[in-house]
């Protein structure tokens, strides 16, 4: 008799019922399997109606984030052996609306990324395309490199109680990404982003619970990024009063 493990999977099928429920599946237990492998087994062998997102299964695409026993995890990196023989509870990321089963609505996050302009806005355009490169020294790269590791998996939003209570909060990843570009020597849009991230819905909502950084699979430390931005915003604000011309 080969070993098995039970998955308790959150189901929400709005076409059938408004109420969510849990469904148990028994799948083969293999030491090298992750939760995503077990979900794929369910989808292929047991129940084709189960919906969830995944793509690369190697911790790069950031699409398979779910709550595994209450903790936000990339399911491609959550090994069954860390839970065996106890059952594994799989739920959609908290703090997000659920569309179906394990699929959450990420419109809000996409919208926020757009608002804080998480892309490079050069200080000055090079005169002609292809006429050169925007040069950067290694020590300039080091300033923002950590924040550039973000894969937009949204685990940090699921871990953030402030986002859970106040969905208007810009949130950890978007602010960390704003800092990623703010700290880039080639970028010139710091002030544009400040209008959003230094607003009442930006960094000031954060109370440094710190769980966003704990669950981050890429060690981005969005909580650190937010506090650093608070220090920077506070310095700028007080300096603006003391010597208004300095800005």
């Amino acid at each position, binding site marked *: 008799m080969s070993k098995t493990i039970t998955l308790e999977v959150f189901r929400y099928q709005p076409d059938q019922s408004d109420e969510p429920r849990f469904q148990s599946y028994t799948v083969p237990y293999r030491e090298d399997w992750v939760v995503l492998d077990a979900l794929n087994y369910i989808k292929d062998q047991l129940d084709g109606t189960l919906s969830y997102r995944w793509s690369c299964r190697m911790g790069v695409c950031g699409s398979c984030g779910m709550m595994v026993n209450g903790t936000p995890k990339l399911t491609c990196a959550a090994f069954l052996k860390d839970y065996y023989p106890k059952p594994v509870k799989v739920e959609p990321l*908290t703090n997000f609306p659920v569309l179906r089963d394990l699929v959450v609505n990420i419109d809000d996050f996409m*919208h926020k990324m757009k608002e804080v302009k998480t892309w490079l806005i050069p200080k000055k355009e090079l005169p002609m395309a292809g006429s050169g490169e925007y040069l950067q020294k290694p020590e300039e790269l080091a300033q923002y490199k950590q924040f550039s590791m973000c894969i937009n998996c949204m685990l940090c939003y699921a871990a953030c*109680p402030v986002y*859970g209570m106040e969905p208007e909060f810009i949130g950890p990843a978007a602010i960390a990404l704003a800092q990623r570009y703010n700290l880039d020597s080639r970028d010139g849009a710091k002030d544009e982003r400040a209008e959003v991230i230094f607003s009442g819905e930006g960094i000031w909502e954060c109370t440094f619970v*710190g769980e966003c950084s704990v669950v981050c699979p890429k060690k981005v430390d969005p909580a650190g990024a937010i506090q650093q931005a608070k220090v920077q915003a506070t310095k700028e604000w007080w300096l603006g009063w003391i010597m208004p011309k300095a800005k």
Partner: protein
Amino acid sequence: MTPEPKTKQLIRPMSPTWWLEKPAYTNFMIRDFTSVFIAAYCIFLMVVLCKAMHSDAASFQAFYASWGSGFSKTLHLIALIFAAYHSITFFNLTPRVIVVFKGEEKVPESTIALAHYGLWAVVSLVIIVIGLWV
């Protein structure tokens, strides 16, 4: 702000006792409540300041003697526990906020935290020495 959903979706509201659901959340709540105990001690400091500024020597002596009571020591002990918890959690978090680069290398987090602990030790020593022997 937040875009309107185009399809039916399930909203799962947060429980008001969310901070009891994970030890990390509970520790956060305790950390933020330390400020209440520190503020309470500051009320005592205000009384000390008031007595020192306004009382004659005899009544300040009586007030000073009351610091040794069991009641005073109990309150001080409670305040001390929370104040120390604040200091430790605060110094542990400093490297996340104060980031120093030496060229391409980040100064290690432990160095920044240790520097703060060192400063804490020096400041504490100065306060205690002045209070006891000056």
